[in-house]
């Protein structure tokens, strides 16, 4: 047993990407299809208010709102903020103003970008018009941005049936977030030891159980586990399953055995693949040892040691 050494923090890039596919209801479908066709639609509430961008339920009364109207592609800035350093994915990559714009004929405002050279060129109340994107797909980004507009105010909202050929019925909401992941003290020590082909767990100072891999806390006692304990390398199969489905991007022939393995000295089992023995000869109590591959950062799989099977009583608490 050795005291934990000061942490040398591991870091790695962690990228989370998710393309959510979302359905559009009748109102959002009409609005986004309209943008594709260069038409700005809103909805009229029972109180006579024109809401752009449109909602499907009145935010005050919760009444269903379905009466579509067309408004002008011109409007007035109701508030703004100067974005001197655009961030990734934002509508423009040159400095721009975020604006809330009330379209002519509308009673509510839409958020977007305004393309002007500097903050002195923006003011609340200024007149703007839509600059349409060159390639339009039926998304809010079909409005490339707004631009200053000196012309007269557009007309009142007029009824629109919301019917377009080939209506857009869904969007794919793409997103990517970049992180730098650090696993913390306990898991750093575990990963560093693995690079030396050693497996270290941590012992709970209260109940003395040895956790592998350690996460820094004993979930039974709710206290920090700080004493490192080397376990294994050999262990006992406590339970297993036979995998018959080939995973994508995983070069392992099926069927194979995936097992819980209690390394000698560990207070709970970790999991790993069993190799070096036909899948239908794996059994509870089988004694196994890790097999490392060249350059591998963790055991590739576990194979039988050839020892006699462990007695059930020796591992039953670890199943």
């Amino acid at each position: 047993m050795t005291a934990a050494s000061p942490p040398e923090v591991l870091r790695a890039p962690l990228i989370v990407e998710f393309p959510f596919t979302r359905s559009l209801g009748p109102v959002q479908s009409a609005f986004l299809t309209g943008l594709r066709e260069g038409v700005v639609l809103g909805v009229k509430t029972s109180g006579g208010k024109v809401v752009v961008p449109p909602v499907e339920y009145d935010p005050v009364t919760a009444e269903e709102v379905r009466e579509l109207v067309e408004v002008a592609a011109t409007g007035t800035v109701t508030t703004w903020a100067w974005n001197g350093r655009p961030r990734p994915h934002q509508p423009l990559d040159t400095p721009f103003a975020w604006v809330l714009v009330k379209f002519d004929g509308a009673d509510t405002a839409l958020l977007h970008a305004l393309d002007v050279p500097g903050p002195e060129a923006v003011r609340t109340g200024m007149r703007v018009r839509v600059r349409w994107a060159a390639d339009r797909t039926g998304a809010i980004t079909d409005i490339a941005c707004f631009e200053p507009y000196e012309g007269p105010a557009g007309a009142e909202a007029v009824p629109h049936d919301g019917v377009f050929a080939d209506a857009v019925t869904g969007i794919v909401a793409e997103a990517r977030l970049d992180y730098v992941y650090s696993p913390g003290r306990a898991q750093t020590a575990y990963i560093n030891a693995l690079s030396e082909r050693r497996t270290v767990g941590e012992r709970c100072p209260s109940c003395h159980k040895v956790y592998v891999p350690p996460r820094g806390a004993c979930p039974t006692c709710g206290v920090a586990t700080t004493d490192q304990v080397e376990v294994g390398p050999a262990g006992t199969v406590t339970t297993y399953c036979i995998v018959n489905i080939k995973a994508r991007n995983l070069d392992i022939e099926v069927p194979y055995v995936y097992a819980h393995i209690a390394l000698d000295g560990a207070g709970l089992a970790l999991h790993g693949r069993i190799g070096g023995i036909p899948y239908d000869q794996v059994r509870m109590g089988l004694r196994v040892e890790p097999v490392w591959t060249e350059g591998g950062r963790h055991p590739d799989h576990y194979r039988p040691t050839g020892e006699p099977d462990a007695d059930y009583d020796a591992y039953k608490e670890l199943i």
Partner: protein
Amino acid sequence: MARYAREVAVVAFAQSDHLRRTDELSEVEMVMPVLHQVLAATGLKAGEIGFTCSGSSDYLAGRAFSFTMTLDGVGAWPPISESHVEMDGAWALYEAWVKIQTGEADTALVYAYGKSSPGSVRDVLTRQLDPYYLAPLWPDSVALAALQAQALIDAGETDERALAAIGARSRAAAEANPHAQLRGAVPQGDYQVRPLRTWDCPPIGDGVAAVILAAGDLARQLCERPAWITGIDHRIEAHGLGLRDLTDSPSTRIAAEHAGVFEAPVDTAELHAPFSSQEVVLRKALGLGDGDGVAVNPSGGALAANPVMAAGLIRIGEAAARIHRGESDRAVAHATSGPCLQQNLVAVLEGDRA
């Protein structure tokens, strides 16, 4: 006290130091010392707590079900009664308070944590926006707050000098707060998104907070001067920013009315205003003027430390701690979530009078 079925009080509060980075700590390693502190303050053991509830966000961690990892620090085996909100811990406290009101628990451990350092929190928070009209434009949290600030300036309700004074007052107050991330004279800085400058914006950091709730006589046994929750309510407004009057916060006002804020004067207000301009909105909604003797954010508030998902719970904890110490008799605590003060929780905390 007749407002609710049971008397419930905050009997202990603990928080971490709030730091720009905590790379050397996993989330459970960051949370656990604070849990031990708050339990030690009451003498309760983890297994004696009736209900545990936490607040955090997977998007900050970049990992699904990230809160389950911190349960190791609670002592979740043998099994405990536990829940989680993907929100600020103030809402976890609300859930715990309801659990105690129903009689299903007499004590609750509420904790919240946020580790913003692994990612870019301004961009991460764009993912909580409406996915059809807003999220594809990636308007970051500072940009949305700046739109609100300009609306206030246009309405004549504040100006850049007044906003700067709010930042300066908050960080000066934080001098006395050993846990705060930003203290004292912080440079005004450049515009982040105009009209907001660096010091109008909260620091980005990692941190943890925890409180213990207890009912009735048990609260009196666990704490010399319990901070009784005599009112609590939370309200939400429309998601669309263009549907709201950004210069006002009707949800805060309604929550405050239901929590009984206006029934008697308060001496302390801990307001969760991550941006200086939002304090202007909240003061108006809560009827807190300048110079009326109310200590507003004596802890320094979110402008001094804003661990996302914990900063609202800290407001309740700080207000309660002032009552515990005898520095306040009736305090209002506020927490917010979502862009431009979309969701707001208001609690009234009172100490027994001598």
